[in-house]
């Protein structure tokens, strides 16, 4: 199956991004395709390469980046949500790109299922 994933929370206050990441890993392991992961609301913080969690904690920014680059998954950060939170190209972790909300709608159209992870 071809999945789209929407992540609406940042990497720390809520578990949504962890759950989305684990869902993506499990889906890929089962042979499914991830068409795109779209980051919205505070979810845009998952792309901030300046984030430095403590070393004994998981680093979701790095995990998403690695998953995206290794599997060629399109990691899209919403530009409107990103700009008001100070997320710009200069702080973007490798593997992410900034684009418009149309990319979310398009993911909904192209994917067999769009799975939403939020609070």
């Amino acid at each position, binding site marked *: 199956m071809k999945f789209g994933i*929407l992540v*609406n929370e940042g990497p720390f206050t809520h578990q949504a991004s962890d759950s989305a990441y684990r869902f993506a890993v499990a889906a890929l392991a089962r042979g499914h395709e991830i068409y795109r992961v779209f980051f*919205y*609301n505070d979810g845009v913080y998952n792309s901030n390469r300046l984030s430095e969690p403590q070393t004994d904690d998981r680093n979701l920014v790095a995990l998403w980046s690695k998953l995206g680059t290794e599997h060629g998954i399109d990691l899209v950060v919403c530009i*409107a*949500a990103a700009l008001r939170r100070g997320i710009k190209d200069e702080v973007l972790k490798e593997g992410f790109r900034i*684009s*418009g*909300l*149309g*990319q*979310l*709608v*398009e993911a*909904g*159209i192209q994917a067999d299922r*769009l799975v*939403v992870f*939020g609070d």
Partner: protein
Amino acid sequence: MMEEWKESGPEVVKRFMYVNRRAPYGTIYALECLEVVLVAAAFDQDVSVVFMDDGVCQLKKNQDTTGIGIKNFSKTYGALDDYDVEKIYVEKESLDARGLTADDLVIPVEVVAADDLREIMAQQDVVISS
């Protein structure tokens, strides 16, 4: 990419439903969901918007946010009609629980009972809730 897709024409029309369940202020979900809906309306898809739980308060008339210093965006819901978003459902039970009726809302809506809303939701291809 969006432009390429639009030029080639939509192959499929899917039913997209956006579900608002939170109060208009206190968190950003209501505002950012409205921003999604206004963009989504530009795609030739079947779009509907639901207001339920505290989300019904997003449509309350006479909002005044001067005391909290946050922009009152309730007038923007009036633009949904300009964008041809015509399927706007409000859950009856949520209105009743808050002492509201359709007359208290800034735009015309279709008030539906929870049972009927459940059926409408089940017919959707994509449900985005916030």
